[in-house]
């Protein structure tokens, strides 16, 4: 066994995109990690943090710190949640009795692709996905976690996968959490621009390190009747050529 991983599943993945986490578990186990899921986990606190309600975010963060206190490695299929834990918990919990535990947690928490490439040092996970794919560089992973190459290193090792670069891959897709609802017009306009960049590649699929980006983009693409489908990074890597239900998001 390579290592023991405690899985942190973002609240919206747990409730709306469970396949993202199912595929994450699948890949982690395939590369030899034992995976556990502490069931008392709820949310990293990002919605309250981002809306300015730090007083409400704080106890939520403390709860998470307690849940993962004894974890060796915490792996999360979401760059934004990991950046909350690594970059914002120190400030949020600066006066909390759990601030040292929070600092310890931050040093052991990883986004899925950085865990594979930088911690386990694995890029070949035995995946087969004979399709064209374009990559959207989700903002929090890119700018806060400084992810650049890790997701691409993984994608390049996938058997049959044709990686197509999109223009302005680093431009925000427009999700932004509650921004998507509070400033719906702007969010949709940004999503449309991103959808156009995606469409220009002609790729069958678009992937990213943040399933929230993909959820937003799939909605935009679906509304336009565009053929491209979104698929989370782990869901690509989980494909091993065996007959299985596709975990790419179905269009309703």
């Amino acid at each position, binding site marked *: 066994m390579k290592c023991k991983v405690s899985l942190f*599943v973002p*609240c919206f*993945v*747990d*409730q*709306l*995109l*469970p*396949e993202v986490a*199912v595929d994450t578990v699948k890949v982690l186990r395939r590369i030899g990690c034992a995976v556990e*899921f502490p*069931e*008392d*986990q*709820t*949310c990293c*606190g990002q*919605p309250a*943090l*981002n*809306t*300015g309600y730090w007083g*409400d*975010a704080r*106890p*939520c963060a403390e*709860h998470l710190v307690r849940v993962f206190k004894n974890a060796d490695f915490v792996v999360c299929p979401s760059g934004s949640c990991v950046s909350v834990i690594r970059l914002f918990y120190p400030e949020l919990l600066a006066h909390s009795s759990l601030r040292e535990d929070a600092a310890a947690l931050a040093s052991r928490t990883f986004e899925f692709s950085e865990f594979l490439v930088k911690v386990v040092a694995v890029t070949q996970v035995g995946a087969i996905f004979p399709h064209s794919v374009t990559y959207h560089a989700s*903002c*929090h992973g890119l*700018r*806060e976690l400084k992810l650049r190459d890790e997701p691409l290193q993984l994608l390049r090792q996938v058997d049959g996968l044709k990686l197509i670069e999109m223009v302005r891959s680093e*431009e*925000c897709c*427009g*999700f*932004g*959490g509650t*921004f*998507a*609802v*509070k*400033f*719906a*017009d*702007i*969010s*949709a*306009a*940004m*999503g449309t*621009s991103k959808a156009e960049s995606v469409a220009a590649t002609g790729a069958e699929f678009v992937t990213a390190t943040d399933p929230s980006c993909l*959820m*937003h983009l*799939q*909605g*935009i693409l679906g*509304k336009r009747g565009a053929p491209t489908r979104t698929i989370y990074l782990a869901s690509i890597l989980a494909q091993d050529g065996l007959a299985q239900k596709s975990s790419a*998001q*179905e269009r*309703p």
Partner: protein
Amino acid sequence: MSQTAAQRFLQDAAVKSADLVHREIIRRGMESYDVAHLKGRARIKDWEAAREKCQEIKREAINHLDRYLLQFEEKVIARGGHVFWAANSEEACTYVKNVATRLGVRTVVKSKSMVTEEIQLSPVLEKAGIKVWETDLGEFIVQLREEPPYHIVTPAMHLNRGQIAKLFREKLDPAIDSDDPVYLMAAARRILRQAFFAAEMGISGANFLVADAGVIAISTNEGNGRLCTSIPRIHVVVTGIEKVIPRLEDLAVLWPVLATSGTGQGITTYGTLIGGPRRPGEVDGAEEFHVVLVDNGRSQLLADAEQREVLHCIRCGACLNICPVFRHVGGHTYGTTYPGPIGSVLTPHLNGIKEFKHLSYASSLCGACTSVCPVKIDLAHHLLQNRRNATEAGATSSSERLIFRAWRYAMLRPRMYALGGWSVRKALRIIYGLGLAGSILDPMRVWNRYRSPVPLPSESFRARWRKDLGAN
């Protein structure tokens, strides 16, 4: 009942977000900037070292602002210049108006100054019967259109040449018959040249106030700033107090960085340094030199140790250019003097958090602004802190506060959270099953206005885990 700034913003954002013509104009303009900017960056051997150096300079200046401002003032006064400390817009405008009326000024030529926009100086002078000519081409254009500048560096980037030609034809000279930019610039030059030579007063801004040399530094390309500060017999500088830098030599890195971030140039064409009125024996130059130091809320921000670095801004515009929100709604939508990320951070501090907090919320927090700021202001982080300040000041709605109170209650109770999630999914399935997606009964209706509905899974991950994923 009049609209709040937030309501106006949402309305304008909705219109602009759907305006594909506008979006294409901005996209083309920003694309041209992106190319130039990359070329400019390539000229600097170590861009990160340049940013750090600029951050260091501004940090030193802002952390000792009083000392450096006093040093600057002393030198200017020793040379026969005047320095006026204006607490707010009103004091600043009154001072300038009084100087003008005392000296019988009938015509003013202005070079670009965002601070004069901030304090709304032109209307005050015009009301006193003084004709004010904006001489920067972009500012001249928006002045003719009677609208505010669209961008802090390129005020007229939202217009195409056809629109500008039509504007000139209607407002300046019916003989204007071409939309060629060279021709239009020549027309503007002809007209404004008369103003330069007729004006009794020139008003400029300042990019930097150099403390050890006691001079203002202005970076321009067109030469209008040069003419405003060479020909008229009175020169008035209107500047924010935060523009100060410690040493003349600091310009060796600030000038190239400002030019690179602002336009992609290696250096702006004219880096002008002026320390006072003309000296005896000099050929020309203003006989009177006034520097108006504008506070207008800056000292309050200065006192805030957490957010004082926002005053490091050198107004290069790079954050506006990269911001995806700006690229989709444009500069006018913000409805403030300073648009874009810096505006969204600064305006709640200068103009009130209650009325302008929405600007700090109108961001996906993508962090692109932070990544390009040449003085390394962590703009995205400040947006987040502004949001925190807004809730702590009680400026957010009570219903939202209640929602997050309830959210927090649920998030501390895993079973309640799981049950809550299940209930919401169940309710949505019923609503969608009845074909009511997007209707008033659909809690996701705002989401569903622009997106096809999120497919609802039959069970949550934790339910799957419990069922069949537990074993390794």
